[in-house]
């Protein structure tokens, strides 16, 4: 990447349909801006996020991945976010071991009423990724042009 060009990170956000996706909708209808670098994928529940999806994202050149779900105790499916929390804790520590800094991955609980939290979380996450710079650790060289 040329030095003078501003770093535009690629950020994938997995949002559960019941809380966080609705929170993102509320951020939108409330016009609470966050950088366009964040692209949201809708999943029924945070527990639907397979660690494989996150590895895939990093492999394909993502600079950060964030998983958003309902607050603990508020999961639409009762227990899904607990599974997500455990799986991601495990995955993130392994990712760190292979060189994907902890700051590049995050789990955040955002309810349908928390448009403000969604926006501030995304602003904060993008700032963090920008400070970390481009992710080069896991990128599949075959995916680069």
């Amino acid at each position, binding site marked *: 990447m040329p030095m003078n060009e501003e770093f535009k990170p*690629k950020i*994938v956000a997995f949002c559960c*349909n*019941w*809380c966080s*996706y*609705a929170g*993102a*909708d509320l*951020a*939108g*209808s409330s*016009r*609470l*801006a*966050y950088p*366009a670098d964040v*692209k*949201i*994928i*809708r*999943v*029924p*529940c945070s*527990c*639907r*996020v*397979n*660690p*494989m*999806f996150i590895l*895939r*994202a990093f492999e*394909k*050149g*993502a600079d950060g991945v964030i998983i958003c779900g*309902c607050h603990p*105790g*508020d*999961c*639409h*499916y*009762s*227990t*899904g976010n607990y*599974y997500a929390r455990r*799986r991601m804790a495990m995955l993130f520590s392994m990712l760190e071991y292979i060189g994907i800094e902890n700051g590049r991955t995050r789990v955040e609980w955002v*309810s*349908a*009423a*928390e448009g403000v939290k969604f*926006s501030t979380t995304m602003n904060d996450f993008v700032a963090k990724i920008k400070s970390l710079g481009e992710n080069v650790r896991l990128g599949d060289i075959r995916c680069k042009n």
Partner: protein
Amino acid sequence: MQRIGVFVCHCGSNIAATVDVKKVVEIVKNEPGVVHAEDYQYMCSEAGQALIAKAIAEKNLTGIVVCSCSPRMHEATFRKAAERAGLNPYMVEIANIREHCSWIHKNIEEATEKAVILARAAIAKVNLNAPLKAGESRVTKRALVIGGGIAGIQTALDIADAGYEVDIVEKTPSIGGRMSQLDKTFPTLDCSACILTPKMVEAAAHEKITIYTYSEVEKVSGFVGDFTVDIRKKARSVDMDKCTGCGVCQEKCPSKKTPSEFNRGLGNRSAIYTPFAQAIPNVPVIDRDACLKFKTGKCGVCAKVCQAGAIDYEQKDEIVTEKYGAIVVATGFDTIKLDNYDEYAYNQSKDVITSLELERVMNAAGPTKGHLERLSDGKHPKEIVFIQCVGSRCSDDRGKPYCSKICCMYTAKHAMLIRDKYPDVNVTVFYIDVRTPGKNFDEFYRRAVEDYGVNYIKGQVGKVAPQPDGSLLVQGVDLLDNKQILKKADMVVLATAIEPDPSVRKIATMLTASIDTNNFLTESHAKLRPVESPTAGVFLSGVCQGPKDIPETVAQAGAAAVKAIGLLAKDKLLTNPCTAKPDELLCNGCSACANVCPYGAITYEVKLINDHGIREERRVAQVNNALCQGCGACTVTCPSGAMDLQGFSNRQIIAEVDAICR
């Protein structure tokens, strides 16, 4: 290969102002599978939907992507439009380029680029979509109402009048709720009990309504149309069938030192008690924590005096299990604790009370028999100061950020009633703003000021200092005159913020109903679905959804009832076809998926499997589509990757990831 049509909506200028929709159309035309792309002013309009139908027919489309608002808004609209045009509704995907794009970005180039990427992700996904068919589930024609206040009573009456069975579960010994504690109601000054008790009696007498008081919802399973609920009927220690409600037991009970919950702790009640005279049912309960028989083993007076032989010290909690098609939450509110507000001296002086406590003081059945008197010395007060917004509209975490909505009106009511009954009493109200929108509300407030001479001062109170002579020194500020005010008062009344009843948290968790940061239940859509929880089959009635006065609560209670009736009137419901599906060839029957399924939807069957020519009997997972709710927990748990989720398959999500990271 799919034949995909992409439809990009302008949404007037909502999208088109920040996203170059023409450019999006041009770019996505070249995406794999796309055979048609066009833009239109309003895709959700009849003309827009006709456009989609026409393209489906003419271009023989097998899948469509609509780039528009959130799928939570119009996914159902476009699915129906596609279905009418002969396309399977699950061949529709939405790219959310409004809430997640045009509304939050200002730079047209950036927003357009993002819209293209979101469209690509949706196209990549729809390329892998498969037609799905919704199943059917049955509807149990019975409703549960949690909470027996005016909201719950009204909802139950409306549902019952439509011909459906309703159960009310109320945690206290009587239905009636907060409204039963009120003395008068604004803006007409009706006696609260006079308008509430007929409704309570009607609910109790209704052949379709069953009331469980002193009971709590313990467990909820199932889903819309088919909930199974365990209700714990706490031991009353009194046989409901035998008790005649004569009240002798309460009179003779020697333990009379328990603060009365109904009177907000002003005054005591006996250990065996009915909360108030008009309680329904008129059957007392024994408070086992206060009862001498339970505490010391001695006493037993109530059993001796009960002519009906209704006292039963051996009674145990009972669990009732019932099935329901719809559940209405009507758990109501409480006032906040004032422990963080030392400046108002609430915990130091008996003459500083909350407005709800004043309701009890003003009530003829209350601790002072309706006489306005200081609770410290029983003297008649000459100066009363009301302080508004105690804990409401609070910017720090001591209180609540919201307006409690009812306080301006009930304070005007209190001030007016006091001035009417006791013209010698001066009434001063410190307020931030007076908010009285509502039919006949502002007129009511103006009457308090103009006809009753209530002194309204715009400004807040910094401190209430109890004085050695028993009076209270109120230190406030008059913002309009820009001066400090020191006022000696005999009584101070705090318009304390209301908050959802604490029990709602546990209930929301059991129902998997969303709750906001203030513990109010979230509605499905703030404007268009205000009485429905995002959880199907769960409806919201009264203050559990947000602060409300009685007219609004009753209106919303009726609305919640109508929504519940609409559900109960159906014989069958269409189920979500996005359920888990095992690949029997890959499954090794390890049980990992069944262990994480919150619905018990996964079982195992021994089946003859033909694995590339090898025929053998294997234990493989089976998903019950009627039970599976499609969370996807099993798909990630499965060690062999055999379980996948229809509509959100591994391949579909990876295709989205790839499109975004491209």
